[in-house]
């Protein structure tokens, strides 16, 4: 085995703050590092982010690598890859954690191929194997029908971790650590790809991924008009409407509303599944939600195996009754 040691966490920054996944990865990294009796370190890439290093230290990082340059303000594959490669080669970690986010999904495989190791994507659980001291990484396969547990034989063991799968780190401002500033040293002439346009799309209301309440419909809703009734419930609960794949394919709702392995992963406090059977592909996208409610006329539907509360009834009768009752309570 190589001489690599310790856990390195890539802390994503958005809008000048740590993204929630950064704090979750620091929590997971801290736990793994202490089980191994090794050190936790963090890498921060961005522009004007120096102030965040202390927060990473408060979360347990003993070393924080900071690459702070205006050109790194937004994520782009090539410069971030160059910087990450540089940091990994300096830090030589045994474990490298990234988020299963747009940038983590892009970056983790590149790092694996560049560093001659392997990346495990969409990890939902991370444990240290007591016998071998290697990282056991659990992830969904076959559209969520099964879970695979795998071990990477080479270092660094790279894991891209699903958001909200790990408990966020506690913070202790008395903890000490060292900040290591690193020059990006990117020769812009060597970059092949160029981001020619960046559009901030003002999300209308809350984003599906961030919603506290999600009201999702399946094939059984039957029409775009049917989804209007779900919108009404979502409106009352300040939530967002989601869907399984068939309603998106049928254009009743935009593709951006799709929840599941082939769409978005959500983890709200309340997930209301209406007229959907609960195919693994879809369930895999929301099953970590706190409270799951199912409304379906088929008592044998798989969704009732996943839900906490269920109403066995045709949604066309149950949903208006639920809406009316909600109006009395929250309206």
């Amino acid at each position: 085995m190589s001489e690599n040691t310790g856990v390195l966490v890539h802390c994503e920054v958005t809008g000048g703050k740590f993204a929630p996944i950064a704090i979750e990865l620091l929590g997971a990294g801290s736990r793994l590092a202490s089980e191994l009796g090794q050190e936790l370190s963090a890498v921060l890439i961005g522009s004007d982010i120096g102030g965040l290093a202390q927060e990473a230290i408060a979360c347990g990082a003993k070393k924080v690598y900071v690459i702070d340059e205006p050109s790194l303000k937004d994520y782009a594959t090539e410069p971030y890859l160059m910087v990450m490669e540089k940091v990994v080669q300096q830090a030589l970690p045994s474990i490298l954690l990234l988020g299963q986010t747009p940038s983590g999904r892009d970056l983790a495989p590149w790092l694996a191929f560049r560093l001659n190791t392997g990346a495990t994507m969409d990890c939902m659980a991370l444990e240290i194997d007591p016998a071998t001291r290697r990282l056991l990484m659990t992830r969904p396969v076959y559209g969520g029908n099964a879970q695979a547990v795998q071990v990477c034989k080479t270092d660094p063991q790279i894991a891209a971790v699903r958001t909200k799968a790990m408990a966020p780190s506690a913070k202790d401002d008395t903890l000490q650590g060292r900040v290591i500033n690193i020059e990006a040293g990117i020769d812009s002439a060597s970059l092949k790809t160029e981001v020619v346009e960046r559009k901030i799309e003002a999300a209308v209301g809350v984003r599906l991924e961030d919603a506290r309440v999600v009201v999702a419909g399946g094939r059984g809703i039957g029409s775009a008009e049917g989804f209007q009734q779900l919108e009404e419930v979502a409106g009352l609960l300040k939530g967002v409407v989601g869907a399984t794949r068939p309603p998106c394919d049928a254009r009743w709702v935009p593709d951006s509303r799709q929840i599941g392995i082939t769409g978005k992963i959500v983890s709200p406090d309340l997930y209301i599944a209406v007229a959907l059977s609960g195919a693994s592909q879809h369930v895999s996208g929301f099953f970590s939600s706190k409270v799951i409610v199912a409304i379906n006329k088929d008592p044998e539907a798989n969704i009732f195996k996943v839900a906490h509360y269920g109403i066995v009834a045709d949604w066309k009768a149950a949903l208006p009754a639920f809406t009316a009752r909600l109006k009395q309570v929250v309206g």
Partner: protein
Amino acid sequence: MKNIIVCMKQVLDPEIPLSLFHIDTEARQAIPPKATPPVLSPFDENALEAALKIKDTQESNVTVISLGKKLNRVVVSSALAAGADHLVLLQDEAFSDFNTYLTAGALAAAIKKLGPYDLILCGLQAADTNTGQVGTGIASMLGIPCITAARKVELDDDKVRVEKVSADGSEVIEAPAPAVVTTNYEVGVLREPGVEAFMSAAKKPITTWNAQELGIETAGTDCFNMVQMYEPVQEGKCEILEGASPEEKAEKLVTRLTEVKVI
């Protein structure tokens, strides 16, 4: 004439009912159900659609490459019926669904062997392994850029132009051709071939290569050990709210949700 390559994987139908899905816990992989044929991975169908959209507007030759231990001719040939011009099958007992490095290496070797290319398209991730690394692996091995999770792909004179969703909006990325692009579901559903398309597909060329013909090493290429594979146990602790009418059931549900403080 543009040369576009699309990598498509044959997978277990991800939509099969749970009752037909079983894991071989010893071999740590799914047991293919006898009654349900495999399908082309849905994201790879999106990739083929992206290629055909380019072919709609400029003269292009679309080559589909599929890799596996054993490929179902009927399934993979559907890519020809949908509009691809040439099918290349990479078949070898040494191939494995879960060995990303070997898969990317074999595809990269086949692409080199096929000659000049302008664009390589892959699905965002396979529907079985759910990993999403093969496109990047091919790019890394061929020394070309890779742009992931595209919702729109254009091929200009010597430039690949990609629109993709970013953390807070969208971005347009350009790279010199050739490049690898992986596609999201937003590029569109694969078109349905007509009856004539199936007839003409039968006349299109199919090439078959094994690992030796590709000149690649297969042993010792997997840096992973699959330790375990299992079907998650579902809790089945659902409280069914009973009542004489929908109103009564709904009232009970709202009460429960208030009690657990989610509304």
